[in-house]
């Protein structure tokens, strides 16, 4: 059996070292191979990546948090305090061996006695399973990014939903509560009531959290690939994905590019001064410059072209069959959720609204509501297909979907784009077409069920949304069950 272990304690002199020695001795006595990394004051060399890759299980003997824990995300884990590792070493080695044999994926809290508060990582460790194949490796990268992104989605989504719920969803978007030159604007300054003002404040805060979705996603994808040096290039790449309005798919591209660039830089052999310069100067500067240039010069252009081309195409379709138009708009809304394709469809809705065609806007909003709603439904009806983090995100997705905050679906889509995005598109296309077929109308550009008062034909509108939600959930459940290998299916069930 091949084991790896990390020991760590706050002062980092005694306990971490003793635990390391104890584990090394006990593992060798039992005929296992072990690599131990001491994360303490003296510290030792990190475990070689190769050893982590080929390991069967990981032992954390820690009184402090494990640095760069993502490296071990694919391994079954036994987590104990250093004392326990010193006093009962043999038993702990046995537990690790057992975990490896059962391939017990780590779920939050399961074997972790007094774990160091890394629940989020634990949650995602359970999804990533064991894989070392390229595909599963990529999946681990995406899941790491998603796990760090979820809190931003939930915070931003719920605050924005709250804003729409308590205040007029249109009025809150039309004011700016803070001006860098004049400072905070009071309700009186803006000529709005206090509730609208509070709504605008919530929207500003929530919107800021949403602004971080793509940078955090990209940053932590790169972090998963290339460790800490990947983070800065990833985040900057994500910010540039925002700049060129490439959406979360652009963010995934930015993260993968940043990670790949830093991974490549790390392979450059360097000695002496140059070696010391690598992490301080070379990785950040070349990494950020590289991913930045690619995002601006290579990714930005096609995105702009998509914007232009799709916009023109949709305008040309205006007079065409309404059902077809609904299908297309719906599918576009769900494709990249805030990315260029979604934006084109939404902008088309806005233009139609200004031109006095209220039905297109209704279809756009309905199609933007079903992705989070459908996923939320899927996490309820087929819990075992989702890990704990996703199930939690699913609860928040109900509120976000109802409030037309399509971003609530991004964590699911980013984690498993190939299965999730087509499902969302089919569900949204259904709803878009139904909304137009029912001649539902909407005179506000957003707000979800909170603007139900200005929706024409509201009952059938809700029926359209409900049907799309069920279609989305059915598709997600179907594709996730179908495309799953036995191994994968077994993993999140724990």
């Amino acid at each position, binding site marked *: 059996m091949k084991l790896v272990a990390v020991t760590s304690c706050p002062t980092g002199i*005694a306990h971490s070292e003793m635990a390391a020695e104890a584990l090394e001795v006990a593992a060798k006595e039992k005929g296992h191979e072990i690599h131990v990394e001491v994360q303490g004051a003296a510290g030792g060399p990190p475990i070689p990546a190769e050893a982590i890759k080929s390991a069967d299980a990981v032992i954390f003997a820690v009184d402090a948090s494990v640095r760069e824990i993502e490296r071990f995300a694919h391994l079954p884990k036994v987590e104990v305090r250093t004392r326990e590792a010193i006093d009962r070493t043999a038993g702990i080695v046995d537990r690790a061996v057992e975990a490896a044999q059962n391939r017990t994926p780590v779920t939050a809290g399961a074997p972790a006695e007094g774990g160091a508060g890394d629940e989020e990582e634990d949650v995602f460790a359970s999804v990533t399973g064991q894989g070392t194949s390229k595909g599963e490796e990529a999946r681990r990268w995406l899941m790491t990014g998603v796990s760090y992104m979820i809190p931003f989605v939930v915070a931003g989504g719920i605050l924005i939903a709250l804003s729409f719920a308590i205040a007029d969803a249109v009025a809150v978007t039309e004011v700016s509560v803070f001006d860098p030159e004049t400072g905070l604007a009071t309700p009186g300054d803006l000529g709005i009531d206090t509730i609208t003002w509070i709504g605008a404040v919530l929207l500003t805060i929530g919107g800021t959290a949403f602004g971080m979705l793509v940078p955090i996603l990209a940053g932590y994808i790169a972090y998963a690939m290339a460790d800490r040096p990947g983070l800065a290039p990833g985040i900057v790449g994500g910010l540039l994905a925002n700049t060129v309005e490439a959406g979360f798919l652009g963010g995934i591209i930015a993260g993968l590019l940043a990670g790949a660039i830093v991974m490549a830089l790390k392979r450059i052999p360097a000695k002496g001064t140059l070696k010391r310069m690598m992490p301080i100067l070379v990785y950040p500067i070349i990494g950020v410059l590289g991913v930045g240039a690619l995002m601006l010069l290579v990714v930005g252009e096609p995105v702009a072209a998509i914007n232009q081309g799709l916009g023109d195409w949709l305008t040309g379709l205006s007079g065409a069959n309404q059902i077809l138009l609904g299908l297309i708009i719906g599918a576009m809304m769900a494709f990249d959720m805030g990315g260029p394709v979604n934006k084109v469809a939404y902008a088309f809705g806005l233009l139609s609204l200004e031109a006095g065609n209220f039905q297109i806007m209704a279809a756009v909003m309905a199609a933007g509501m079903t992705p989070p709603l459908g996923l939320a439904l899927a996490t309820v009806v087929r819990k075992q297909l989702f890990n704990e983090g996703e199930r939690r995100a699913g609860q928040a997705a109900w509120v976000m979907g109802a409030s037309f905050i399509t971003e609530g679906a991004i964590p699911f889509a980013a984690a498993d784009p190939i299965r999730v995005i087509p499902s969302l598109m089919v569900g949204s296309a259904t709803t878009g077409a139904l909304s137009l077929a029912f001649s539902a109308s909407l005179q506000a550009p957003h707000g979800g069920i909170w603007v139900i008062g200005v929706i024409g034909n509201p009952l059938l509108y809700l029926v359209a949304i409900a049907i799309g939600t069920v279609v989305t959930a059915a598709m997600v459940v179907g594709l996730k069950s179908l495309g799953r290998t036995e191994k994968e299916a077994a993993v999140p069930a724990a």
Partner: protein
Amino acid sequence: MTTISDLITATSVTTDLHATNAEEAIDELARLLEADGRVTDRQRYVETVVAREAETGGTGMESGIAIPHGKTSAVSAPALAFGRSAKGLDFGAGDGTPSDLIFLIAAPEGEDDLHVRVLSRIARKLIHESFRTALREAATPQAIVDIIEQEVEL
């Protein structure tokens, strides 16, 4: 070059602790380090160590060793004191085993890689039964220093 004698000398070792509880033992060993000039403010150092013991539930191990330690500016140079207690003292070991081999570690603020490395080497040795037995059987403080020096190859 760092040698073991930079960290532990016969004057900071006692084979016969008088202390009747953990706190007294920590103070008794800290006095040895104070006499050596390694601990400049004994009271503050002992407070730090005792507080840490209380926080962590004690550093006693089931093998009978305890490694109370503290990192504070009340320490001028990294040092190690060792005391053997005939009856054993309660350092909060998981199964209640009294600790008879007590290593008090004093570390100054800031990084001192080399010394920390030596300390951690010694800590590692404590895992080995043969090392503990030798410490239990050594007759004099100098013998204990010799054992440590011998075992912890530098």
